[in-house]
């Protein structure tokens, strides 16, 4: 242990001792996410980057249905709430008509890879100049933990109570690998935010995905494999461990497509 002097609470709060503060691009509204859930961290990272790049006035965000449906309560930017699965179409409409704005979607795995698969693939295939943040927690969080297209084999959910049987329920969809094959995507990466080191890496990836949009080269796509401790019925710590042991082997972290 380093020999640090013990500070009182009052001293810690003094402006000169401030080492970190929340970006003003996060509002004061208390996050509605379950304690331990990754959504809050991901929100913060995106807002920090937009703040650091001084892009608040240039940004229009789209959050469809899922646990993050209320993202507009927390993000201090202009936002549109979209129907379940349709965010890439909504973002297309925005970006085509407002080409100088930074336009992003923030979607869950049920949203992006089940009901909205068509919109996802076609927006990527058209090479829309948008940025997609894809939060993959392998489950439908908002509606109470039903099976998602990304649910792992044998994984138990409310609608696969005996475990996902791939013979009858299909296989976990690696949609990120799928869209990386399309010429319309420019940057495709998979990250996580469950450790401090991963948070730093994810932030770098988010920054690239935001800055690349200015190049007009197509979709930048950041998947974040995240936990749903409530839906998985685990403590936050257990869920992160389970994620490392089970999700990462199936959804390996790292860049999938980087600009040539």
């Amino acid at each position, binding site marked *: 242990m380093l020999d640090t002097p013990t500070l009182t609470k009052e001293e810690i709060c003094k402006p000169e001792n401030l080492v970190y503060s929340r970006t003003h691009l996060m509002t004061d509204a208390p996050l509605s996410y379950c304690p331990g859930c990754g959504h809050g961290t991901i929100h913060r990272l995106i807002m920090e980057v937009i703040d650091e790049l001084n892009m*608040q*006035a*240039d*940004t*229009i965000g*789209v959050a469809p249905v899922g646990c993050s*449906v*209320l993202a*507009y309560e927390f993000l*201090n*930017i*202009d*936002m*549109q*709430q*979209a*129907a379940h699965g*349709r965010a890439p*179409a*909504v*973002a*297309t*409409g*925005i970006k*085509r*008509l*407002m080409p100088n*704005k930074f336009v992003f979607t923030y979607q869950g795995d049920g949203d992006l890879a089940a009901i909205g698969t*068509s*919109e996802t693939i*076609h927006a990527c295939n058209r090479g829309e100049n948008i940025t997609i943040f894809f939060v993959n927690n392998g489950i439908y969080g908002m509606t109470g933990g039903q099976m998602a297209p990304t649910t792992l084999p044998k994984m138990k959910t409310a609608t696969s109570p005996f475990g996902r049987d791939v013979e009858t329920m299909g296989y976990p969809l690696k949609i990120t690998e799928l869209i990386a094959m399309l010429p319309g995507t420019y940057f495709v990466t998979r990250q996580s935010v469950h450790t401090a080191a991963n948070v730093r890496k994810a932030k770098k990836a988010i920054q690239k995905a935001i800055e690349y949009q200015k190049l007009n080269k197509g979709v930048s796509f950041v998947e974040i494999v995240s936990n749903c401790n409530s839906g998985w019925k685990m403590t936050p710590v257990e869920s992160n461990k389970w994620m490392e042991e089970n999700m990462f082997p199936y959804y390996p972290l790292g860049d999938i497509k980087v600009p040539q």
Partner: protein
Amino acid sequence: MSKTKDIRLMKGNEAFAEGIIRAGCDGYFGYPITPQSEVLEYLSVQKTKERTGMIVLQAESEIASIHMVYGGAACGKRVVTSSSSPGISLMQEGISFMAGTELPCLLMNVVRGGPGLGTIQPSQSDYFQAVKGGGHGDYKMIVLAPASVQEMYDFAKLGFDLAFKYRIQVMILSDGAIGQMMEKVELDEQIPRLTDAEIIKKYPWATTGKTADRERNIITSLDLNPVKQEIMNRKFQEKFKRVEENEVRFESIHCDDAEYLFVAYGSSARVCEKAMQLGRDKGIKIGLLRPITLFPFPYEEVARLAKQVEGILTVEMSAGQMIEDVRLGANGAVHIEHYGRLGGIIPAPSEVLNVLEENFIKSKVYA
């Protein structure tokens, strides 16, 4: 010196497409379907990006089209999609979301016969879907019913004006006959598209990027607080009421001395106009009431005429949908019959006149 008029021979669908360009449209998103594919084809040929800066995009589905419209409309842009019946069915969730967020837009339904894949022939069987709110929730759209190629053109501008005046969705309920037929159209001068600065000034609710001088703009229909959700819904209802009070449009022909009345819109009104002339040639005093707005419906005019005439025949290319509104307007004051052809058949004027005579005149003689 007035300039020479710009008059052209055009298909209904093309006239609508030209109408939206000239009305300063910013974006069109659509998916091909007969009998309205000419809209997207015409716009594609027109090189709108060069002409006015208007964006035209073929979407992967009608679902995508309507949500692209949503995104653009939420930025305060003048946006349009068009389709025909099955495609409009697919759009209903998106239209409902636009109602819940009060986003202005222009929608064209060149109606074909259903249910199901039905037929590509003209029909008027989507009246209920358009007028009574086809998607989920309590909402109404303004519904305009063109009866000529000129109106296919004119209603583009009118539709945009109404959409932005009330922050409401405007649907032009046309049909395969009006969409496909050719007539002469008188065109207006190009209205310039709004600049982004003008949009920010005119539509302060639009998501144009949060600047320091205002709070962030949020486009959402969600409110989980039942009290707030009710307040929001009451506000919508008040708007629909204002629309009903101010925007009723209809055309009445020979109604002053009419003893019998046709009520018909769109293609059917064209048929009835001819049937009315045939009847008048025989000495039967027939009038025609043509609703131009289907929502708001001209209930008061129907009520007035119901007290004057001896019988009303509604003519629709459906099993009888608008007749319910005519009955509401007449409120039992007069005998009302429906005549309709289904499956894409357009009734002939003589056929319609015959039905009127059979129902009201012959029955009167033998009564």
